[in-house]
C-alpha cells in the first residue's frame, strides 16, 4: 500500500485501519476491523493519542483490559504495518495516513 496516500476529507486528517485479534476483539463488540478517520490536529498524531481516542470512541467495555496507564496492557502486542511497534518507537510513533495498526492479545491461552 502507498504510504504517501492522502486522506481526502480534510487537511491533516488520517485514515487508519485498526485490527484486533486473539481475543482483543471481544472488547470491541466482536468487531475485528475498524476503518477510522482521525481529524486533523495541531500536533501530529502519535500512538499515545490514538490509544486515548480508542478508549473514548471504540472500546465498548472493560477499558482496563486493553489499556493500562497510557499504554496497552502488557500481553497485548501492537503491530504497525506488520512490524513490531517496539522497533518504531512504541507510543511515540507518528501515525501516517493509510497505516494499519494491529492489536493481538496473547493473553488468551492456547
Amino acid at each position, binding site marked *: 500500500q502507498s504510504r504517501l496516500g492522502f486522506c481526502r476529507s480534510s487537511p491533516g486528517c488520517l485514515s487508519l485501519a485498526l485490527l484486533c485479534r486473539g481475543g482483543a476483539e471481544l472488547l470491541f463488540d466482536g468487531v475485528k476491523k475498524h476503518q477510522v478517520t482521525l481529524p486533523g490536529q495541531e500536533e501530529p498524531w502519535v500512538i499515545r493519542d490514538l490509544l486515548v481516542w480508542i478508549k473514548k470512541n471504540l472500546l465498548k467495555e472493560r477499558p*482496563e483490559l486493553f489499556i493500562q496507564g497510557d499504554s496497552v496492557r502488557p500481553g497485548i502486542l501492537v*503491530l504497525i504495518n506488520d512490524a513490531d511497534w517496539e522497533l*518504531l518507537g512504541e507510543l511515540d510513533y507518528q501515525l501516517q495516513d493509510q497505516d494499519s495498526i494491529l492489536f493481538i492479545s496473547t493473553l488468551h491461552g*492456547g
Partner: protein
Amino acid sequence: MPQPWLPLPVSGQNLCQDAAFKDGIWDCFRAFYVHKFRAVLGKNRLIFPGEKVLLAWSGGPSSSSMVWQVLEGLSQDSAKRLRFVPGVVYVDEGAACGRSREDRAKTLTDVRQILQTLGFPWHIVTLEEVFALPPSVLRCSAQDPVGTVGTYKVAVDSFLQQQRTLAAEGLRGSPSSAQGEEQPSQPCTQDSQDPVGPPPAAQTEALSQLFNSVKTLTAKEELLQTLRTHLILHVARTHGYSKVMTGDSCTRLAIKLMTCLALGRGAFLAWDTGFSDERHGDVVVVRPMREHTLKEVAFYNRLFAVPSVFTPAVDTKASEKASIHRLMEGFLLRLQAQFPSTVSTVYRTSEKLVKAPRDGCAAGPRCLLCMCSLDVDSADSATAFGAQTQDFSQTPPPTPRAKAGAPAGPCCAAGLGGAPNCWQGTRPCGREGSRARVLEHLCYACRVTMKDVPCLDPLPPYILVEAQLRSQRPSAEIQEHLVENSDDEAPASGSGARGPPEQEGKEARAARDCINKNFFN
C-alpha cells in the same frame, strides 16, 4: 538458506523499519522458529519413529502453531521429515464457560473446517464426556521406563533402514513410483471421531451446575484443567496414542511455574513445567513449544497465516485479580515489559528442576485428581494442616436456598449427623463420609482447590467411584494383621487339619472388626 541482512544507509530506527519489509528477515525468523521446534524434539529424544502422538489443540495461538509445525514437518523431504504419526484432539469446553448451544456449534464448524485441511485423524470431544469416563483413567498404568539414548538411536536407525528397503523395493517394483512410499500408509481420517449431535442436555446442565457451584475462579480453572487432562488421557489411551503434545509456550510455562508455586504445587513443578510429564505411566505429555515466547508465536501466526479459532474460556474478560492465574500472568507480563529477561529467567529456572528418582509409578499412593505422589500424610491429624482439612467437613451449613423443584439443587455442607435440610430435592447432598473419602486421596494443592467446591457430589462419577474404591482397599497395616491371623490359624503340627472352629471364628471376627472400625465408622 535465508538471505543475509543487507545494511542500509539510513538512520538506526529506519533500518529496522525498512528491513522488516524485506523477505529475508522473515525467512530468517521462520527458519529460527522452525529450528527451535525441531531442536526441542530432537534434543529430548523421547518421540520414537512411527509413534502415535496426539496433539492437544485448543484453537488458541500456541497450540495452532504447534499443529502447523507438525503439519509442515511431516511434509518436508525425507531427510528432515518428522517421523511420528500424529492425531489431533479438540475439547469443547463450552459447558464449563456457560456458552450457548448455538455459539458452541458455530465454533465447532470453524474447528472442523480447519481439522479437515490437516489430513490427520482428529477427535472432537466435549467436556460432557467426563461423565462417561471409567475410573481406570485415574490409575497410573505401569510402563517400561523411557528408553535411553542408545535405544532411541537404535530405533531411528532401524526405522531408516526400513524406509530405505521399502524405497528400494518400490523402485524395483514399478517404474512409476519413483520415490517409493516413504511414509507409512496415510493415516486415514476414517479414524476420526466427531460427536454426531450436541451432548445430552442433562450432562451439559450437570457440568454447568458443577462449575457454577465452584466459589472461586482459581478453583474453577484448576478443576477445568484436571477434567480436561483426564479426558485427553482417555482419548489417547483409547486410540493407542503413547504421547500427547501440548502447546504450552515459554511465557505460559513461566506463568504456570509461578502459579503452581502459589497454589501449593511446588513439589510437582518439574512435571508441571518440564518438557516431559510421565506421571500417567503409559501416556507421556510433552511440551514442544516450550522454547517459543508468546510474542514469537503471535508474530509467526500472523505472518504465515496459521489458522486458529478463538474460543472464550472461563477466564475471558476476568479482571486481573480474579484468580491466582490471572494475578501471576499480570505480574509477570508487567515485569517483563520493564525487564525483558524476566520470562526467560523464570523459564530457565524451570529447566533446572530435576525430578526425584521414581521407582516406578506404583510406588506410593498418588493424588486422585492430579496423579502426582501424595505429599500429605492422610492419617496425620495432629498437624495444623491436618486439623484444617478436617475442619471443612464441620462448617455449619449455609441457609438452605429456596430452589423449590430443582432436581439437582445446590447442596449444603451438612452437619455431622446429616441434617434434614440436606435432603431437599431428589438428589441429597453427600454426607461427611463421602467428602472426607475423596479428600483423603488428594494432594495438598487439590485439597485446597476442593475447599472452594462446596459439595463434591456433582463431580463426575468416575472420581467418586475411584475414591470409594481406594478407601475400601485395606492399608498395608491391615494387610499385615490379616496375614498374621491366617498364620495363627495354621496348626503347628503341620497335619493340615484346621484349628478348632471357635478359635478360627474368633480370628476372622477380629480381622473383620478391625476393618470395620477403620473404614466404616
